[in-house]
């Protein structure tokens, strides 16, 4: 992975000093709340329900063992012994003290980490997919490009105070797993007809209270021009995006107001002045950064391992886990492994300090000391030998990291919601837990098959509920907590936004509602269909009827 040189290190260290002084001035009363706000936000510090919340950047989801050990130590020392992985692959600490945050950032800087631009109205952490570099369907390893964008966007002076936050995702595979269409800018690598690598640029996607999938602004961009093109897009946005109303300030609103054609015209006009300028990426710079992302020193291994095959044959629990948690790899004899942070009945995405040390240890021993975080809020060991999978499983299982539910209904994506977040309409974690308990039978869960269930505690959509096959949204009705259900959302190349099925439900109804949706699916599905396919084929009406029929029965009895 990328290693800092003195220049990178100096920037992070100087940032810690600057922030330490800002906190000092705030505590001394020299900065008002309102003035301190944008400053602390650009360092990842929110003031939340119980305490500040610190969001630590995990650029494009890549971590080293050393970094995860450090996060484990920090969570132990400055927090309550756990952290939370967010859908943007960052780590959040829910209980740090404001006075401690400069020290936390200083500790992070010792392992080349920071919280720069993890919140605030600026360019945020760049995301990609968790299998970058090992995916069999890879076009390019997107991490080098993501790192170049990270550096360029760090303290970009022109874009330090945008109308609203700005999120860029890069996909380097045929199957999009980075949700490029739900980002302010999405860069999708592909091969053109001449088999030349090109980028399709999406703009103006985003969920939140106005969910919109992005539009294609440029069909064919060459990699050299990524930075100057992004500059053109963001400049038009910075100058003309709305600043009067934060709910209408994302770039998607501007793109919609102008229309994609007019927006493209303005961007192209701007770009004519920037194209081929100094921020054009050189071959040399791409090569310099790419050298940190070359293939691991793999052994030459056969495509099969007898020990592994027999363990699967003889141990059903192990077999069930491999089915869900072990993923294809471009190198023969290796696999990527997802460790589940979704044990049934616990907050999705939470990881204890102890578990962080275990995972870091696993990566050290079995996966070249590196790991990834996924936007589904799990952690991944990218390079495990077939022959090591059994040992990995045993250790993971002993530490509550091997629930065989990856990609299944209980692999719930969930925001912190009302338990932690001051913007919430409703709690989300208890709903996730109750649904997980409802579907605790593993055979049943596997029979239901692939399903994405997403929960957000309010319309800000941190849990991506619009693109969940089943989406649950916390809503406020006269001061009490209710939940609205959508179905038919999907991430990926054929992304779609879900449709609301009808009136909202009380918390205690939710496991039953999901159960009813599943009943319709099980009744209607063909052999090959996943839940989402059935919804797309038959539409929402049968689901709606079944869910609300029961409601009616209940009230009529």
């Amino acid at each position: 992975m990328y290693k800092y040189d003195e220049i990178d290190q100096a920037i992070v260290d100087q940032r810690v000093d600057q922030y330490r002084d800002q906190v000092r001035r705030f505590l001394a009363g020299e900065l008002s709340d309102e003035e301190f706000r944008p400053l602390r936000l650009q360092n990842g510090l929110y003031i939340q329900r119980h305490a500040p919340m610190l969001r630590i950047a995990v650029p494009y989801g890549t971590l080293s063992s050393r970094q995860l050990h450090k996060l484990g130590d920090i969570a132990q020392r400055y927090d309550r012994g756990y952290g939370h992985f967010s859908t943007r692959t960052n780590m959040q600490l829910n209980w740090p003290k404001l006075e401690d945050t400069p020290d936390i950032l200083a500790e992070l800087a010792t392992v080349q980490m920071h919280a720069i631009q993890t919140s605030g109205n600026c360019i945020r952490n760049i995301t990609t997919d968790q299998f970058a570099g090992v995916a069999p369907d890879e076009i390019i390893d997107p991490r080098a490009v993501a790192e170049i964008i990270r550096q360029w966007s760090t303290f970009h002076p022109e874009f330090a105070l945008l109308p609203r936050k700005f999120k860029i995702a890069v996909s380097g595979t045929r199957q999009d797993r980075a949700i490029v269409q739900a980002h302010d800018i999405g860069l999708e690598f592909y091969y053109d007809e001449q088999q030349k690598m090109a980028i399709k640029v999406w703009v103006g996607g985003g969920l939140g209270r106005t969910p919109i999938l992005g539009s294609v602004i440029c069909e064919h961009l060459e990699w050299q021009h990524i930075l100057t093109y992004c500059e053109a897009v963001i400049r038009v946005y910075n100058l003309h995006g709305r600043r009067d109303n934060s709910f209408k300030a994302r770039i998607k609103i501007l793109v919609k107001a102008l229309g994609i054609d007019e927006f493209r015209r303005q961007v192209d006009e701007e770009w004519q002045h920037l194209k081929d300028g100094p921020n054009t990426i050189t071959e040399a710079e791409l090569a310099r950064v790419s050298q940190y992302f070359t293939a691991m020193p793999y052994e030459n291994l056969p495509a099969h391992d007898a020990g592994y095959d027999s363990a699967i044959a003889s141990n059903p629990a192990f077999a069930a886990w491999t089915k869900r948690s072990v993923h294809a790899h471009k190198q023969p004899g290796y696999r990527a492994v997802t460790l589940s942070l979704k044990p049934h009945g616990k907050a999705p995405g939470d990881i204890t300090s102890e578990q962080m040390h275990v995972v870091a240890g696993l990566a050290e021993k079995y996966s070249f000391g590196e790991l990834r975080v996924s936007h589904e809020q799990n952690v991944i060991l990218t390079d495990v030998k077939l022959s090591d999978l059994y040992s990995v499983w045993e250790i993971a299982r002993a530490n509550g990291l091997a629930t065989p539910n990856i990609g299944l209904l209980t692999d719930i994506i969930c925001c912190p919601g009302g338990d932690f977040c001051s913007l919430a309409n409703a709690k989300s974690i208890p709903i996730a837990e109750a649904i997980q308990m409802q579907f605790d039978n593993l055979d049943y869960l596997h029979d239901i098959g692939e399903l994405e269930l997403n929960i957000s505690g309010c319309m800000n959509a941190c849990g991506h509920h619009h693109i969940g096959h089943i989406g649950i949204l916390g809503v406020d009705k006269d001061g009490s907590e209710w939940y609205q259900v959508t179905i038919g959302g999907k991430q990926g190349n054929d992304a779609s936004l879900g449709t609301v099925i009808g009136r909202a439900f009380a918390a205690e109804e939710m496991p039953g509602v999901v159960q009813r949706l599943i009943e319709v699916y099980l009744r209607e599905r063909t052999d090959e269909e996943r839940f989402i396919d059935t919804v797309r084929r038959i539409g929402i009406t049968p689901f709606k009827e079944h869910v609300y029929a029961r409601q009616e029965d209940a009230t009529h009895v």
Partner: protein
Amino acid sequence: MSNLIHNNAIVNDEWTTVTLPAGEEVVRKQAGKVVMFKLTGEQTCTPEQIAATVIPENGKIIVPLSVWLARKAELAPRLAKGELGIWLATHEVLESLIDAVDDINQLPIIAVFVERFADGRIFSIGTLLRTRYGYKNELRAFGDVLRDQLFFLKRCGYDSYLIRADRSAEEALASLQDFSQPYQGAVDETQPVWRRVQR
């Protein structure tokens, strides 16, 4: 003590900034909340305000763009003497300033008013003035200008900062040194780090 920083030093302000007389400030609300920013291109002063703007007889003055546009004939001699600069607010359209003078470098000073700290349009305006329009003279930021914008303002081509009256310009000056090597090319340092140094 002056609160003006110019070319990395605290200096006395030799310019008088001419402001429009107070007009009726319409408080706009949306969903019960006060609308805080002006939209790009929004017209915010009336012909009466422009006509009533008092121009000092002598000395160096920075006049509002709207006043310059409406009272060019009267003000042109001051420009010829090198005693007139123009200021615009972040919601005004930069191109109307560019079109309003034959040569932008006739202006010894351009000032940009930022009403709120969080309004980052000031950065793009500075960048465009320096890069697109080749403006070379003093470029000043004033309004809600605090130390934590300075580094960015400098990188976007500003060389003059009038720090908000209740804050220390001295402390603000120190913040210009917060970072040694920026990553990306911008106005002050056009080359990105990988073109400047062997990494």
